[in-house]
């Protein structure tokens, strides 16, 4: 296995009331253990949600279309319960990995709070409830189950993009997952050329994924395109650079159905 590409001080995980906190936290802790970094989780109480609950005429429409009233105190209690659960899961997981860990509750917007809390050298993970899709097609395994769900990385030809690729390769190697590189190209030839560069760069840093690495050509890297690719490929995580606009990140996190890892 390749050595960690850079010494990182901390893996910072931000979550809202996403239901699958165990998987996200566990992945974060394993990554931190590999990077010999501390792990810190932040549960963000969504300010919009709390305000929404206070509006007297707003009703929550359940997944099956049944409307019900929103009680601010009830929402507050539910969020507190989520926060406690996240703390417990993080603590258990970190103790098993013998890692230093920290937990905090923030109030505001998930991406904003995460970016505000992050510092240079942090590896950021983010998992939130997006607005779409309403539901994924569960139980209909499209991708062969012989393979683990892949790690997807958005490749950009800049310094941050290369860092993101290296981190993705590390994670894939660490967890023995396939790595799928999303390359924006105008045509197959251009995509193949980029892909050769990517392979060469990974070989140079000693990443050995034994054939479990591939690429997918995308027409562009807009949040909708990337989120769609992640959903279709059944991604375990999407990794990309933080060097993107806040709007784009917001749009991406709204659509993503898997956790997002942001590399500074």
């Amino acid at each position, binding site marked *: 296995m390749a050595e960690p590409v850079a010494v990182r001080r901390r893996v910072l995980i931000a979550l809202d*009331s996403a239901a699958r906190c165990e998987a996200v936290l566990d992945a974060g802790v394993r990554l931190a253990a590999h990077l010999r970094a501390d792990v810190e989780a932040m549960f963000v109480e969504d*300010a*919009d*949600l709390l*305000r*929404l609950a*206070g*509006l*007297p*005429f*707003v*009703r*929550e*429409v*359940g*997944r*099956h*279309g*049944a*409307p*019900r009233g*929103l009680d601010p105190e009830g*929402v507050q209690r*539910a969020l507190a319960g*989520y926060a406690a659960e996240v703390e417990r899961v993080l603590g258990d997981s970190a103790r098993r990995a013998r890692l230093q860990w920290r937990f905090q509750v923030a109030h505001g917007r998930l991406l904003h709070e995460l970016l505000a809390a992050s510092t240079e050298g942090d590896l950021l993970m983010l998992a939130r*409830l*997006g*607005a*779409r*899709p*309403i*539901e*994924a*097609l569960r*139980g*209909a*395994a*499209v*991708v*062969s*189950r*012989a393979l683990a769900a892949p790690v997807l990385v958005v490749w950009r030809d800049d310094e941050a993009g290369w860092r993101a690729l290296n981190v993705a390769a590390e994670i894939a190697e660490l967890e023995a997952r396939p790595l799928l590189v999303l390359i924006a190209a105008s045509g197959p030839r251009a995509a193949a050329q980029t892909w050769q560069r990517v392979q060469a760069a990974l070989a140079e840093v000693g990443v050995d994924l034994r054939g479990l690495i591939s690429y997918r050509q995308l027409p562009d890297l807009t949040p909708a395109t990337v989120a*769609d690719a992640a*959903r*279709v490929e059944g991604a375990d995580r999407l990794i990309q650079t933080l060097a993107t606009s806040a709007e784009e990140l917001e749009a991406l996190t709204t659509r993503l159905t898997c956790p997002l890892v942001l590399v500074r």
Partner: protein
Amino acid sequence: MSDIKPLSVDTLYQRCDPALLDFETTDELEDLSEVIGQERAIGALHFGVGIRKKGYNLYVLGPPGLGKHNVVKTYLQTKAAEAPAPADWCYVNDFDDPNRPRALRLPAGRGAALRRDMHHLVEDLLSAIPAAFDAEEYQARAKELEKEFHERQEKALGELQERAQAQHIALLRTPGGFAFAPMRDEEVMSPEEFAKLPEDEQKTLETQVGELQEELQKVLRQVPQWRKETRDKLKALNQETTLLAVGHEIDALRESYVEFPEVLAFLDAVQQDIVENVDDFRNQEEVPENQLGRAAMREPAFRRYQVNVIIDHDEETAAPVVYENNPTHDNLVGRIEHLAQMGTLVTDFMLIKSGALHRANGGYLILDAQKVLTQPFVWEALKRALFAEQIRIESLGQMLSMISTVSLEPEPIPLDVKIVLLGDRMLYYLLYEYDPEFGELFKVAADFEEQIDRSPENTRLYARMLATVARQEKLQAFDRGAVARLIEHAARRVEDTEKMSTHMSGIADLLREADHWASQAGRSSVTTADVDHAITQQIYRAGRIQQRLQEAIRRGTLLIDSEGQQVGQVNGLTIIELGGFLFGHPARITATARLGEGEVVDIEREVELGGASHSKGVLILSSFLSARYALDRPLSLTASLVFEQSYGYVDGDSASMAELCALLSVLADVPVRQSFAVTGSVNQLGHVQPIGGVNEKVEGFFDVCKARGLTGEQGVIIPSTNVKHLMLRADVREAAEQGQFAIYAVETVDEAIALLTGLPAGERGVEGKFAEGSVNRRVEDRLLEFSELRQEFGEHDKGKLEVKIDSEGEVTEVGQDGDEPDGRDG
């Protein structure tokens, strides 16, 4: 005084002259393949095996040790070799009803082939199906379906979201679903801000949010329908993909089994099941290629495609001949095993095990009748199978409600088998008498002889049979002297100079033991001396009780006289059989007589130590006395007969001549010579009839006399009809030759009493009277005397009154018959 002479030495033993045997040792003799002296049984066997009709099963009768099993098995194997190997039988899963596995019939060897084919099919599909689902074509079509589903949601939700955004309203995800919220400055409007809005603006917002909520509800309610449609399409795609993967694999199998419609139906069911359960194949963890087979075997999901070959005749060319040594219910009709899983007992068609009936189907099944009858439920199960002509595996535990768990009802298998029951005669006759179904199912009886004629031809065949056994047992060769001795012993075993025993087990034992003693003596072939030694050793090993009895007689504990004379006392002869060893010894029989009413009391019977045959013998004596001596007057005696110092059960009538002689002695008041022992039964005319165990009885008395010293006066009286049974020991013959011991054969009791008393028995003269001084005259006179005495007593008793005292104290005289005397009262 008697004219009867002792039997000549050559009548005491029928030798087999070694000179008549045309070989030096048994090595020169060819093996004997046929069975000698069993023509009737072999004929029945040929008939029973040859006739392939329902109910023509065989019961082979005869005592153990005759070699019935070997004869039957050898013959059946010969017949079986002429027939082809029967069909293989398999059980496979019934996919519609797994509790009723289906039976498949295939030609010999094809069962195992089908098992291999199905195993390979599962192995192939374990890679072919995932590969089909990993193929780009499937992936693309499946993704297309998912995309379609996603886009339907996206479109519906996107349009709604755009409408909302136009009204500055955002669609937010909440922990439990979705909600619309009015926005201000990129944030959800707070309740306070909302409260500050003008009332009409608040209402407008409320209306807008309410309308959007309704729209959202409509969209969300459509999602399950979209999901169902997508799932159905995906399912159809999966089935199509599976069929593509499975179809050509199964088609190849179909071509191999095209002539077997049941197999084709099974393959159709397998294909259908795989299509419906394709996820079992797709969800396999990745395993190295060379372990796929083992993985498949381990995986319970794939058991249902396996084939349980319960009968495999692969590489067999003949019909089966099966001997079931332990015919329990399960071993006969098969069983259904269970596995303990998570604390419960479970089973499936793979746990069906065959029974002897399955293995013998299409051939022959040999069973021991006694074992079949003593094992619970086996006889009934066997009859049920034969009547129904099918094997139905029924769990005994289930039948008796001993196991309360899921079990199977496998499809019955057609049965075509010839059953050969081996057993003794008593069982055959009992079954015939008490089980009406027995006669219907076992129509052929093969009755084995226990003895064969000792003809010159049979003697030669017997020698070859001995040679065959010796070779089979890897024994040393027997010289002709030894063979002659064995033939003589075979005659002795059946107590007949003109017969030979067919009890092969006993003969083979003697061969083995003679071989042992020859080896001990360092001889390279077995001689007469070795056979003699083996016989002597057999007798010695078994003879402890015999020796103790002889010792008791020698020491005077058991009172047996072998010299002198006694009135009313005769040496009878009895035989005892213990542990297969037969020996004789003398027993003192005494008789007493007195005035009485014509009855002969059998004391053994009175104390219930006598059997029915013995009692019958004694009653015959009474009849004999009446018929001979008291035709015209009542037999006016009471006589008692007893086996002295006998404390066990006595049966048989072989002592009736001795008892009659004792009775005649006491009636005639004539002493009997104690140097004789007597054996034989008599009828009521005084004729002597043959008895069993004559050799042992003679030798029993000889041993007593020899121990005390032979005087030349001693001997045994036997029925003349038993002379042909004499195969006496060499020392008895030597004593007889030297005049120290004699065997007399008699035809009537008169001959016996003459020998015993030294007086003539006497015959009736012209006047109808027995000769003066004869035993019969003395007996008749004595009985006449008793009769007159009884008459005197009778007259004296007449008129004798009995006195009765009634309840009121009155005394009444009544006659013997209870009548009131003439007008007298007390």
